[in-house]
């Protein structure tokens, strides 16, 4: 193996040629947009520029406008809250379901897994449409069922009419879509935990919680850490779900997260300069969150 590696190190043209197509497409699709966005965030780039007026360099003006705009900070805070709450619920539910999968016999496990796969494979726009129908104000089955509980009046309750119920619903939908990935990943990790050790612990009188805390959790912790990071990144950039719920409900700014906020700045306000500055803020938060993940993958690459 070492001789092969040594010989290949000397023939340095081939690997570079092999990565050229990937580099070109990444520069086109990602590199150029990032650079454009950085430059535009320092420019005045509004409606006039859309019609051909050359953009002017304004230094940090866009960032200063943003930093002093309480509306933006509200959106940032709301997005972070949504992202953390949703990611943690997803992780908790996903882990509990993985534990359940490990606990039951083959048939119920298969039923649970198939049901999760079906949810996982729903295209997001189709899933959103169904959920909006489930929670429809007048004919939705959820209001109908809740209304049957004695003492609960959910007749014609509009879930999309207050920010709290709007985001609670959005969060529930994201959890529903994301839990299968978490469950399958954690379940894969759980199958590595040895049965004998668990049984021995049980014989020694360890409670279910303690067995999870001291035996299972340390073993699946790497999986859980990575899944949590991915979930945080995905929930921070959530756009489609919010956009489609806004289609069905209210488009007011109270219902915006970062994705829809940027979209509105870019499309309705046509203010590309400010929109670019907000986008860079999202990129920065994403990279900050994902840095740990990237580092752990790099370590593994070196080990391989």
């Amino acid at each position, binding site marked *: 193996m070492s001789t092969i590696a040594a010989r*290949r190190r000397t023939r340095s043209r081939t690997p570079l040629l092999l990565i050229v197509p990937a580099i070109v497409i990444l520069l086109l699709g990602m590199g150029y947009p990032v650079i454009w966005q950085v430059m535009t965030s320092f420019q005045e780039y509004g409606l006039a520029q859309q019609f051909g007026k050359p953009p002017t360099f304004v230094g940090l003006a866009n960032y200063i406008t943003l930093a002093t705009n309480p509306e933006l900070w509200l959106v940032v805070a709301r997005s972070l809250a949504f992202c953390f709450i949703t990611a943690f619920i997803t992780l908790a539910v996903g882990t509990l379901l993985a534990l359940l999968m490990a606990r039951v016999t083959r048939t119920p496990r298969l039923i649970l897994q198939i049901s999760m796969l079906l949810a996982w494979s729903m295209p997001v726009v189709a899933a959103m449409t169904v959920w909006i129908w489930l929670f429809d104000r007048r*004919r939705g089955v959820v209001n109908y069922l809740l209304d049957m509980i004695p003492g609960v009046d959910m007749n014609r309750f509009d879930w999309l009419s207050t920010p709290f119920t709007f985001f609670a619903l959005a969060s529930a939908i994201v959890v529903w879509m994301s*839990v299968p990935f978490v469950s399958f990943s954690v379940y894969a990790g759980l199958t590595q935990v040895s049965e004998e050790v668990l049984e021995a612990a049980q014989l020694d009188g360890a409670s279910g919680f303690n067995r999870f805390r001291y035996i299972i959790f340390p073993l699946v912790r790497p999986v859980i850490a990575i899944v949590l990071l991915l979930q945080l990144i995905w929930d921070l950039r959530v756009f489609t779900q919010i956009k489609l719920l806004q289609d069905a409900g209210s488009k007011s700014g109270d219902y915006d997260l970062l994705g829809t906020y940027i979209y509105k700045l870019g499309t309705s306000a046509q203010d590309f300069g400010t929109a670019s500055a907000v986008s860079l803020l999202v990129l920065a938060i994403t990279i900050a969150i994902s840095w740990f993940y990237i580092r752990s*993958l790099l370590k593994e690459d070196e080990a391989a």
Partner: protein
Amino acid sequence: MNRRLRTALWSVLAIVIALVWVFPVYWMVSSSFISTATLQSFIPTFFPVNPTFSNFAGAVADGSFYSALGMSVGITLTVVFFCLIFAFLAAVAISRFRFRGRKSFVIAVLVVQMLPAEGLFIAQYKMVSSVGLLNSVIGVSVIYIAAVVPFTIWMLRGFVAGVPADLEEAAMMDGLSRFGAFMRITFPLLAPGLVASGVYAFLQAWNEFTVALVLLPAEASQTLPLWLRGFVQASATRETDWGQVMAASTLVAVPVIIFFLIVQGRLTSGLVAGAVKG
């Protein structure tokens, strides 16, 4: 409580959760077979007693479904094809060779994978429109390939590394050229990895919404997710016809669901291996 009873209770719980989880999918398919008149009632119908196909006929009536289907198929095939070639070549480079710049390339791939399209779509719009490729298959495809290629490279890297280079060497000793050895020995062993990566690219391209919304503003060039959203909005201007809307959703979802179920074993192990174990 004895052990048997406890196991039974856990099983019941698992099945109840399975039913709750699958309910939205069931509800979509079920509603799509119920006539508009029945759905108008304020009491939900839990099972399509007199199934009808009229909702499906209504959903595809104006022909825009077929043009969106064509667009989606065109984009998806382009993305899968190029993504696999580019990712495969790069995966071979980083798992078979040690070269200057390798580490920078690996870091770039990992970082780019994290960049959200949701934070880049304005620049992507500007770029694609400046070369006149809005509403075209090529414009969207370039962005999709760039978005999908990093993860695919990472996934294939594991598969290429799993094929021992010694095998190739042995074949070369037996008189095959380097390229011949690669094609005869390594390539067939990579098939599962290529399938998993291809499916991943397929699902991403088929379901993508955000970039399509920005880069395909014309109605004639909508992909299926955009078509579905437009269909829902058009229906909402009157009284939303939920039967037709659910039929439209089913049409978009069912091909993916079937495809997903067929390849799921390979895909989940590939995805989990790619995302979790690297």
